[in-house]
C-alpha cells in the first residue's frame, strides 16, 4: 500500500512540476475563490447574527425580561421586586419600565410608535441607549414634560429620506404632542434624539416613568422589568436563580424575546448561504472533474502504457487523486490568504447593515466544515474521472 502510494506520489509530483502550469494555476485560483465563497458568506451571516444579538441585549431587552403574570397588565410593587433582584449575585442592572403605544404629532405629521417610560438611571444600568444620543441630551430621573425621540421617528424634512413614518424632521427643543391611550394629550419638549442603529430604539420614543405614572395615575408599577447580568450566555441558569429567589412573574431570556425576528433574518440568510455553498461546491467538483478528466483522456494512451508495463491501475488512480488533493491544498491555502486580505479590508472599511457595522465572524468550525467539504469534493472529483479512464482495457487505450 505504502509502495503504491510512493509511486503514485512520484507520478503526481512530476505531472504537477512538469505539466501545464497555466491550467494548474487557473484551477487552483478557482478552488481558492470557491474556498473564499464557502467561508465569506457564512461569516457575514454569523456577523449579522452576532450584531443583532448584541443589539437585542444592549438596546432592547438586557439579558432577562420579567413580565406580569398571566392575565395581569402590570407588575405591582415593582420597587420591591427591583430591590430583590438587585441583591441577586450576577445581576448588574434592573430597569422597570412601561411600554405602550401613543400617538405623537408634529406639524401635521402623526405617528404611532411604541412609547417607553423609563427610570433613566436604572435604564442606563441595563441598556446602552443613553450612549447613543446624537443631539440634545438623554432623559434624567425626575424629568417631566420632556421626550427623547429615536432618529427614525424624528425623521427628516425631506420625507424621501425617511425609512419609516416620521414626524418630518423634528429637532431638539421643538414641542411635540403626545396622545395617550387613556385619552390624555400633553405637549412635550424634545430633549434629545438617539441614533443607535437599533430599529426598536430609533423608531420609538422615551419619556420618564414618573411622567407616565402621572398621566395614567399609576404608582410603583411596570409592565416590563429588564435585567442585566454580568455574563451573557448563562440566561437560563440566571432564570433559575431568579425563580429560586422567589420571583413569580414570567421570566424571558433575550433569545426568547427576539427569537422570531432574528430567526426570520437568519433563516433567510441561511437559505441564501445554502444556495451559495451548494453552487460553490458544484463549481469546485465540476472544475476539478473536468481538469482531471481532460487530463486523463488526453493521457489515455499513456495510462494504457503505464498499465502495460505493470503499473497497477490503483497507482494511476492514486496519482490523479494526489493531483486533485494538491489543487485542493494549494487552492485552500491561497483562498485562506485571500480571505485574510478581505478580512483586513473589511476591518478597515466595515460593511454597514441597517443594524450597524458587521464584522465577519470566521470561527474554527466554519473553517473546518468548509475545508472538509472542499476536501471531499476534491477526492470525488479526482477519483471518478481517473477511475473511468483507467477502466478502459489496455489495448484500446494504447491505440487511442
Amino acid at each position, binding site marked *: 500500500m505504502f509502495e503504491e502510494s510512493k*509511486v503514485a506520489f512520484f507520478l503526481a509530483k*512530476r505531472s504537477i512540476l512538469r505539466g501545464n502550469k497555466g491550467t494548474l494555476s487557473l484551477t487552483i485560483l478557482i478552488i481558492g475563490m470557491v474556498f473564499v465563497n464557502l467561508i465569506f458568506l457564512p461569516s457575514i451571516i454569523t456577523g449579522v447574527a452576532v450584531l443583532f444579538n448584541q443589539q437585542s441585549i444592549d438596546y432592547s431587552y438586557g439579558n432577562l425580561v420579567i413580565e406580569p403574570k398571566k392575565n395581569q397588565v402590570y407588575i405591582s410593587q415593582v420597587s420591591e421586586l427591583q430591590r430583590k433582584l438587585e441583591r441577586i449575585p450576577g445581576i448588574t442592572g434592573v430597569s422597570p419600565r412601561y411600554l405602550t403605544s401613543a400617538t405623537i404629532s408634529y406639524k401635521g405629521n402623526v405617528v404611532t410608535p411604541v412609547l417607553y417610560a423609563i427610570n433613566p438611571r436604572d435604564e442606563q444600568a441595563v441598556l446602552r441607549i443613553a450612549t447613543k444620543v446624537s443631539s440634545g441630551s438623554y432623559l434624567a430621573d425626575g424629568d417631566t414634560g420632556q421626550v427623547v425621540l429615536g432618529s427614525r421617528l424624528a425623521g427628516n424634512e425631506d420625507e424621501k429620506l425617511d425609512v419609516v413614518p416620521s414626524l418630518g424632521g423634528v429637532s431638539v427643543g421643538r414641542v411635540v404632542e403626545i396622545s395617550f391611550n387613556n385619552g390624555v394629550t400633553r405637549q412635550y419638549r424634545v430633549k434629545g434624539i438617539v441614533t443607535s442603529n437599533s430599529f426598536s430604539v430609533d423608531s420609538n420614543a422615551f419619556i420618564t416613568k414618573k411622567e407616565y405614572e402621572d398621566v395614567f395615575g399609576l404608582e410603583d408599577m411596570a409592565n416590563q422589568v429588564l435585567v442585566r447580568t454580568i455574563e451573557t450566555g448563562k440566561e437560563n441558569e440566571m432564570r433559575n436563580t431568579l425563580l429560586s429567589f422567589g420571583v413569580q412573574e414570567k421570566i424571558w431570556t433575550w433569545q426568547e424575546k427576539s427569537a422570531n425576528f432574528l430567526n426570520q433574518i437568519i433563516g433567510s440568510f441561511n437559505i441564501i448561504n445554502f444556495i451559495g455553498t451548494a453552487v460553490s461546491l458544484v463549481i469546485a467538483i465540476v472544475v476539478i472533474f473536468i481538469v482531471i478528466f481532460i487530463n486523463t483522456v488526453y493521457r489515455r494512451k499513456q495510462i494504457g*502504457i503505464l498499465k502495460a*508495463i*505493470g*503499473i497497477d491501475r490503483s497507482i494511476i488512480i492514486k496519482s490523479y487523486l494526489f493531483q486533485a488533493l494538491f489543487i485542493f491544498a494549494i487552492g485552500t491555502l491561497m483562498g485562506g490568504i485571500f480571505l485574510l486580505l478581505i478580512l483586513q479590508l473589511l476591518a478597515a472599511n466595515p460593511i454597514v447593515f441597517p443594524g450597524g457595522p458587521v464584522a465577519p465572524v470566521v470561527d474554527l468550525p466554519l473553517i473546518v466544515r468548509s475545508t472538509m467539504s472542499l476536501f471531499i469534493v476534491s477526492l470525488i472529483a479526482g477519483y471518478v474521472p481517473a477511475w473511468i479512464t483507467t477502466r478502459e482495457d489496455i489495448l484500446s487505450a494504447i491505440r487511442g
Partner: protein
Amino acid sequence: MIIGRDLTRIYGMGAVKVRALNGVSVKIQKGDFVGIMGPSGSGKSTLLHMFGLLDRPTSGTILIDGVDAGTLDERARTQFRLRRLGYVFQDYALVPELTAKENVYLPSMARGMTAQECTLACSEILTLFGLGNRIHHLPGEMSGGEQQRVAIARALVNRPTLLLADEPCANLDSQNSKIILDLFQRLNRDLHQTIVMVSHEEWHKKYFDRIISMKDGVIEEEVNRSEGGELTPSP
C-alpha cells in the same frame, strides 16, 4: 518457456467477426531471439499482445514459465507484467513528464526497490545503452533512437524473463534501427535475454534466431537459424 496452445482471438460482435488468430500453437524457448513477421492483419501483433498479457485469447491457453496466464486476475496479470515481462512499443511510449532516468526508475520503484537500488539499476543500464549523458533529459529533448533505447532500458530494468518488442524500429531511420537491433542482439547473446519481436522489415531477419511468419491469423512458416547462420524451415 512460452507455450501457446491453439490460440484464437476473435474481434467484433454480431455478424461481423474478425479472426485475428485462428488456432495458433507456438513454443518459444529460453534464450531465443524470435522474430514474428508477416503482412498487416496477419495476427503478429495480436500474438505478441497475448504473450505480453495485454489481451486474452478467445480460446486456447498460454503458459509462461509454467504459469497459466488464463488463471490470473487483472491485478495478478499486472504484477506478472511488472516482474516477468518487458515490453517495448513502436512509438517509445515514454512518460513525457519523466526524465530518461525517471522513466527507467518507474518499474523498479513499482516493484518496491529502494531509491538507492533504483538509481543504481537505472544509471547502470542507461550507461550501458550509451545514454549516460542523457539521464536527466525529458523524452521531448531526445532523438527517436535515444527515446527507444530509454524504452528498452525501462523494459529491461526489472530483469524480465521475456522481452517483447512490437515493431520497435517502425519510427526510426535505418541507422537508429540498426543501433536498436544490435542492442537486442547483444542482450540476447551476452545475457541470454529471451526476445520476441514483431517486425515486417525483411532486413531485420538477419538478427533473428528463429522467424515465425504469419498470415491470416495462422502460422504460415517457421524457420530456424542453423549453426552456420542459414535459415532453415522448422521440422
